[in-house]
Structures are given as C-alpha cells and as structure tokens.
C-alpha cells in the first residue's frame, strides 16, 4: 500500500485541479492549515470553490488565495472580519461569489456529506434571509429549513498528531472543522505537528479514524 505520508506540501497538493471544491479547516488561526494554504497558492489552480468558516484576513493565507484570483466562490459563515478587505473588495467588485451559511448549518452540511445524508431539516435560519428560496416544513409544531450536504474534492486540515494509518488527534479548540471536513472530501490532506508510530495513539481517543485520511504532511510547528 502506498504510504499516506508525503514528504512535501507541494507533492500532497499536486493533483488539485481547476474548478475543484476545497474545504479548508480552522476557526480563526486555530486549526488553520497555514502551510497547506500556502501550498495551494503555489499550486495555482483556478476557479476554486472554497469552504471555510471565514474569508481570510490581511494579505496571507486564504486572503492571499483570493487576492491571487484563484477563488471563484466561497461558502462560509462569517466573511466580514477585521482586515478582511481583500475579500470585501473582490466581493464588491463582483469577482467572487459568496454563499453565507449559519455556522451550525455549515458544520451539519459538511457532516451530512460525509455521512451519506441527502438533506436534513434544521431550525436554524428559518424565517431569515438565509432561508429565502429554501424548502421549509413544520414538524411537530417547529419550523425547519431543508439544507443539503456540501461535498468537496479536497479537504485541507490541520491536526496535532497522526499515525501512518491516518488516525488523527487534534489539540484543544483547533479541532473545530477538521474531523467533519475529513469525512466530506474525496481526498483529505492533513498537516500535522508530528507523526507517531502505529499503535501509539490511544484507540479510545482517536478523533479521526484513518479511513478518512489520504495524505499526511508533517510541518514543524
């Protein structure tokens, strides 16, 4: 079996293609796969659809990816942040599509993709602008909106430790979107602070089983 451990970020991203949907983990800087994002910028694939909680800050990372013109559309919960001027300008100039999703619906839609669920009724967003045009239903007296799964071609996430089988553990609130994004992509690429031996992770404490992980790159933290 070919090893899941890749020597370099660039090799791990070599088949990202134009038009791909790419999920990127992280909430703020916690869990953000900085080196993989930099690699994605070097890779230079265009017309990407990016799924992330935010839309980048400053001129690095996701913001730089947007500035480079590689992003066609972004699906996120909170694009407007301090220093999100690169996204703001691209959006106002009509250069980037935006789909704003309530954060919990975003998480549940990602989970649904990984779990083979075709759609689900959520109370979040009912009666708001973000549910306009969506199917609604009253179930047992409560109002729900039908939301659909979000599948990805690639997920780029950050974990703490991996073993060579791809089992992952995370660190504190850097866990956030990583475990669900790992399940929702055809190819999941993980940057980790360290690779440990098979059997060194406690089977009770593995958060992402190796079945969800295709590629691992160790990045000095």
């Amino acid at each position, binding site marked *: 079996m070919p090893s899941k451990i890749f020597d370099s970020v660039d090799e791990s991203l070599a088949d990202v293609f134009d038009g791909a949907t790419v999920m990127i983990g992280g*909430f*703020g*800087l*916690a*869990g953000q796969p900085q080196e993989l994002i930099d690699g994605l910028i070097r890779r230079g694939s265009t017309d990407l659809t990016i799924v992330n909680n935010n839309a980048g800050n400053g001129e690095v990372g996701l913001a730089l990816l947007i500035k480079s013109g590689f992003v066609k559309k972004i699906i996120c*919960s*909170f*694009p*407007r*942040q301090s220093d999100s001027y690169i996204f*703001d300008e691209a*959006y*106002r100039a009509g250069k980037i599509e*935006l789909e*704003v*999703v*309530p*954060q*919990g*619906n975003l*998480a*549940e839609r*990602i*989970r649904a993709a990984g779990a083979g669920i075709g759609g689900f009724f*959520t*109370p*979040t*967003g*009912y*009666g*708001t*602008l*973000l549910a306009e045009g969506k199917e609604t239903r009253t179930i047992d007296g409560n*109002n729900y909106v039908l939301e659909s799964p979000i599948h990805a071609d690639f997920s780029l996430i950050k974990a703490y430790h991996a073993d060579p089988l791809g089992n992952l553990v*995370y*660190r*504190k*609130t*850097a*866990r*956030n*979107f*990583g*475990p*669900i994004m790992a399940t929702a992509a055809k190819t999941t690429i993980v940057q980790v602070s360290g690779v440990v031996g098979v059997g060194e992770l406690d089977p009770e404490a593995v*958060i992402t089983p190796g079945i969800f992980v295709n590629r691992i790159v160790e990045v000095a933290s």
Partner: protein
Amino acid sequence: MTSATLTRVEMAQRVAADIPTGAFVNLGIGIPTTVSNFLTAEQEVTRHTENGMLGMGPEAIGDEIDPDLINAGKIPVTELPGCSYFHHADSFAMMRGGHLDIAVLGAFQVSEKGDLANWHTGAPDAIPAVGGAMDLAVGAKDVFVMMELATKQGDSKLVASLTYPATGLQCVTRIYTEVAIFQIDPNVGVTVTEMFGPTTMARLIELTGLALIDGTK
C-alpha cells in the same frame, strides 16, 4: 426599583445573578461576554464556546496564551477542570438540540414576539456575515438579550415587528436594558419585570408603542 438606570457593568451583573446554579451557558461576543466576570464559583455555571469546548475558563493572560485555545470571538482563553473538546458539528448539535440552558446575546432589535435581529443591518451594501448567531438564537432553552432600550436616535429597539433582517423567530425570552427588564412570552405578551431609575410604565409604553404588561408589582 433602583435609584438610577443601569450601567453596562450593572447590566452584566444582573444577567449573571439571574443565571441559575449549574446552568450551561453560551455568552455571545461583545458585551454578553462580560457577564462571565460576575458569575460566582458557587453558581457552578459551565460555559460553552461554539468553536468546540465546554468548561471554558477566563481569558488567557501572558504565558497562558495558547493559539489552539480560543473562544468564539477568537480571544485566547483557558481551560477549567472538567472541560471537554468536540468538533464543530457536535458543538452546534449540542446547541441546536436544546441542551444549553441560556444564550446571552446582543441585539439590534427584538420584537414583542421574541423575534431577534442581531446579524445584519439590512444596509443594501453590507456584506452578509452571520457566524453562529442564528444557531445561538434557536438553540438555547432561553435566550437573554442585553441591549440599550433605544437607539441613539431615540427609537425603541423593542418593537412590534422587526425592521432589521431576522436572526431567529420567537426565540428571545428576556431582555435586559438599562431602564428595565422584559420577559417575553409569545402567548402572553411582553411583561416588564423590573424598572431602573426614573423609568415608568407609561414612559416604556410610550417609547415602545407596545401594550406592555406591568409585572413589577
């Protein structure tokens, strides 16, 4: 009735005092976060942060700062003994499933039915950004809002119907303002439970234009 209207600090103190012993709470970004400063150890309140943690401690200082440990406002925080971590889908499932007792949020407007507006000014050129606001609005058993009762222009933020885009419908159960506390029950109406300073029912009814119920007696 107290002798003066409440300061923001006093509002936070009031909210903190009203949180029941043993409650699980989510304190929204901004002023609601300051409520934690007034929670006592005896209250045994557990704080949830929607980016994946229960048992969140105070803001981290100095050497405590760990970039992997932040709250929903992306501020470094600390662990308390007995805390736990979980991923985003589990965290929002916890919220959406009604397991949190109280969420404390800010607001642009609240309607007399408890509809909440706090995510979008409605300005045509505003970039929409919702974060976890809609999930918080529908998830907790009780949603407490902290806000000034009127805008700088003098318009009531407690209204018959929202003019700002809604965050959630019929979700707010209580509003803490500098002049009064309001309890909302969509089947009953809005009850004034407490007034501060020179506030009167007549003045509140005039400002809000609502048929408020006097529950202060």
